[in-house]
């Protein structure tokens, strides 16, 4: 019988099996199988808990196929926190899972050896960058040395010249009067693959009267190992981040990656059983804000520079479903002069990125992505905007698959562009150089 935490059991008990969630689930929509729906997965997990089912390969496959996008939480009448159930079940099942030596070594290296160590992560990224610059990666793709999922993403992952942490000073002064003191989570993947977006975020915040702190000792938020069932690795990272960020004394912790924001906000759940950190986790979580959430709440300095473009906003699941932030990014976008925000059908449905899902469940992920791209193509955008690094990469791959011309950007990239456009026009000094 499967042992789950009190919290996960309580969430399971809130599910009365009504089934109103099933059509909200991207994997059910593709596969049409009850076991691949939120209700079905909860029922299977409940059966495991009650000893009515055994976790064999066939059953585990249903749980593995879950994106953990949490769209079902938005649809659920009684507000079942499905994310807590699947996360707990995955962690509990991981301990009795037999993985190949290669797979378990890779997991261990990735979750414990790489993500919590920013320097190593940057070193890896440098190697990748070198391979890209010298064309070795193209060679590897062409010769089939790189397996399919890797090859597909190698095309859209471009390691930029500089990482955010290498460009950003530890403290950035506000433009004008100091209205807020904020600390920026630079993240793991976000910082090495989207350094310019981190820089843009700092710039936009400073432009809006924030003193921006960029703690050097911060690590990955832990979302990736957490969702893959390695909770202990995630806890280690959480403790480190709590210490680092509370020490800054910032009013808010600003996050520009939806998955990281929801993880930080849920640190109190992760560390509920840790007497030394439970209270600190609550203190930290209370200060965490997604950058779009923050910008929508403050009196945003109106961006003057026009961005003349048709734009669609694709909800990041961990923003829309996990944090309930749907209106704010759209409000921010609508403040940009010239920008035409077009309606995107089913914008709240997952793009199939889902952490490392697009690598481990490549085929289904591409099926989900293609469904998303059909909707996006119908809206004919020039720019596709989202609020999470994984989604942005996935959508870039989608753009390629569909042969579209659209750019894929983060909300703050676009806002920053609008500020920059005006500043360049007016000949204002740029107080952080564009990286």
């Amino acid at each position, binding site marked *: 019988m499967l042992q789950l935490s009190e919290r996960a059991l309580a969430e399971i*008990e*809130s*599910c*009365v*099996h*009504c*089934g*109103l*969630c*099933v*059509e*909200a689930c991207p994997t059910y929509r593709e596969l*049409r*199988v*009850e*076991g691949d729906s939120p209700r*079905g997965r909860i*029922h*299977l997990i409940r*059966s495991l808990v*009650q000893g*009515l*089912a*055994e*976790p*064999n390969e*066939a*059953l585990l496959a*249903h749980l593995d196929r879950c994106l953990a996008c949490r769209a079902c*939480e*938005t*649809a*659920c*009448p*009684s*507000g*079942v926190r499905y994310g807590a159930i699947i996360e707990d079940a995955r962690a509990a099942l991981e301990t009795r899972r037999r993985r190949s030596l290669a797979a378990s070594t890779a997991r261990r290296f990735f979750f414990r050896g790489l993500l919590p160590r920013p320097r190593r992560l940057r070193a890896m990224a440098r190697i990748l960058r070198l391979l890209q610059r010298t064309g070795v990666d193209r060679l590897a793709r062409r010769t089939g040395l790189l397996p399919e999922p890797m090859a597909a993403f190698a095309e859209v992952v471009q390691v930029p010249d500089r990482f955010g942490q290498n460009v950003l000073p530890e403290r950035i002064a506000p433009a004008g009067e100091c209205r807020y003191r904020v600390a920026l989570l630079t993240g793991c993947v976000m910082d090495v693959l989207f350094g310019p977006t981190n820089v843009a975020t700092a710039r936009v915040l400073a432009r809006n009267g924030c003193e921006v702190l960029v703690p050097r000792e911060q690590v990955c938020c832990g979302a990736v190992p957490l969702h893959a069932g390695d909770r202990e690795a995630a806890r280690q990272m959480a403790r480190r981040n709590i210490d680092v960020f509370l020490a800054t004394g910032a009013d808010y912790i600003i996050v520009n990656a939806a998955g990281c924001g929801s993880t930080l906000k849920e640190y109190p759940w992760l560390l509920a059983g840790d007497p030394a950190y439970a209270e600190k986790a609550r203190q930290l979580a209370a200060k965490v804000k997604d950058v779009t959430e923050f910008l929508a709440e403050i009196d945003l300095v109106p961006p003057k520079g026009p961005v003349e473009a048709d734009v669609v906003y694709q909800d990041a699941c961990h923003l829309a479903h996990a944090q309930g932030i749907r209106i704010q990014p759209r409000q921010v976008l609508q403040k940009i002069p010239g920008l035409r925000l077009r309606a995107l059908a089913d914008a709240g449905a997952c793009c199939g990125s889902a952490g490392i899902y697009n690598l481990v469940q490549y085929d289904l992920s591409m099926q989900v992505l293609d469904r998303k791209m059909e909707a996006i193509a119908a809206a004919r955008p020039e720019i596709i905007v989202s609020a999470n690094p994984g989604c942005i990469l996935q959508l870039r791959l989608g753009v390629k698959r569909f042969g579209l011309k659209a750019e894929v950007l983060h909300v703050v990239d676009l806002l920053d562009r609008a500020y920059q456009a005006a500043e360049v026009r007016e000949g204002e000094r740029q107080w952080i150089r564009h990286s």
Partner: protein
Amino acid sequence: MDQAQLIAALGDIVGSRFVLHDPQQLRAYDCDGFTIQRRLPRAVVLPGSTEEVARCVRLLAAHRIPFIPRGAGTCLSGGTVPRGDEVVIALTRMRRLLEVDLRNRRAVVEAGFVNLHLTEAVQQHGLCFAPDPSSQYACTIGGNVAENSGGAHCLKYGVTTNHVTGVKYVTWDGEILELGGKATDLPGYDLVGLLTGSEGTMGIVTEVTVKLTRLPQGVKTVLALFDSVEQASRAVSGIIAAGIVPAALEMMDRTAIMAVERGNFPVGFPEGQEAVLLMEVDGLETGLEEQAAAMEAICREAGCTDVRIARSEEERARWWANRKTAFGACGRLAPNYYVQDGVIPRSRLAEVLAEVHAIAERYGLIIANVFHAGDGNLHPVICYDEKVPGMVEKVVRAGSEILAACVRAGGSISGEHGIGVEKLADMHLVFGPEDLAVQAAIHRVLDPLDLSNPGKLLPTPGRCAELKSEAIPTVST
């Protein structure tokens, strides 16, 4: 034919990845929205076309293997719960919108097409599919046909059978027939009408031709709060007596309000509110204001403490989301629910509700009432925890008592959720042995070997008493 041969043969028809047979996987199909009885099916097959359904059925019929058609599995009466030896034929892959005929206002959909998706697909043309069960976010039109589903707006627009004009249908032995069409009221026996509400016991409907309804020019939605269910019931009677034909007239009692307010779609009703009425009039803009004002006045006269008219579409949508998710929100009150579906004459609402309340007290159960007050269709939701020893028996008995009270008041045992396995034993409350024999005779014509969803809808003669006790053993492995 042994299990391995059966799986292989089904796989030859639909493709092996669309046949589920691992017992651990089948666990997900051991029940639907009715969870009191749970058993594993023999296998689940997911055909992709009518032709594949027919070939599956032919194979199964040839080997005398019973089968269960299944849509989204939101049924509240256990219409798709296996006895253990059936193959579930899940129609969820068959979800194409085959045709929208704007000039004749008809749509043709595959059985697995989701109810709400039809309205979403045609509303740009000012049309909708009128039957709107609360499960419409997920439930399939094939399932709606099987159960003859209703919904909040059926008070004015009628239930599923009023909107189905034709079906493509696979008989018990795998023949494909087309019945009806786009025209209404064909001569001869109304076979489409017979299949609508047959709960899958007469073969499998695979395609449905439905009417599309013009979206009303205007809508007014009114919400009224009351200090007692009696006052709210008085308002319901008053509205009907005044000759107003509301599109919907819905009530929730204190316990139901508590559930929705704790759930995901709260409206913000005051703590401890005893009753709310959600009313809607629609149609030509002219006169709507007056009707809404008249309803408001009637509610005030009945003693409501507050009454509001929705000021925006957004507000209206919020009120409806709250109402439509009320069953599910009962998960905030207890881990399990058992949704009742009694019908009573509107005039006896207050009295029957009092009786339901008394039954709840007597059994020490939490019962939330959320229902279509306008057509007297009650939905007492019994909230319980199946882990408490003896609880399920108690809940089943209380459910039967509620239905008996409805029948005594001049009503019936099901408004829209069907009989399934859930109310088999209660059929004798409304039908005598002769009535049931006639129904069984009709059934035998269309399913002579009792292979199509056996053990649902019609009780086997003389077994009524045993059935309720059979319904009790909950889970088998």
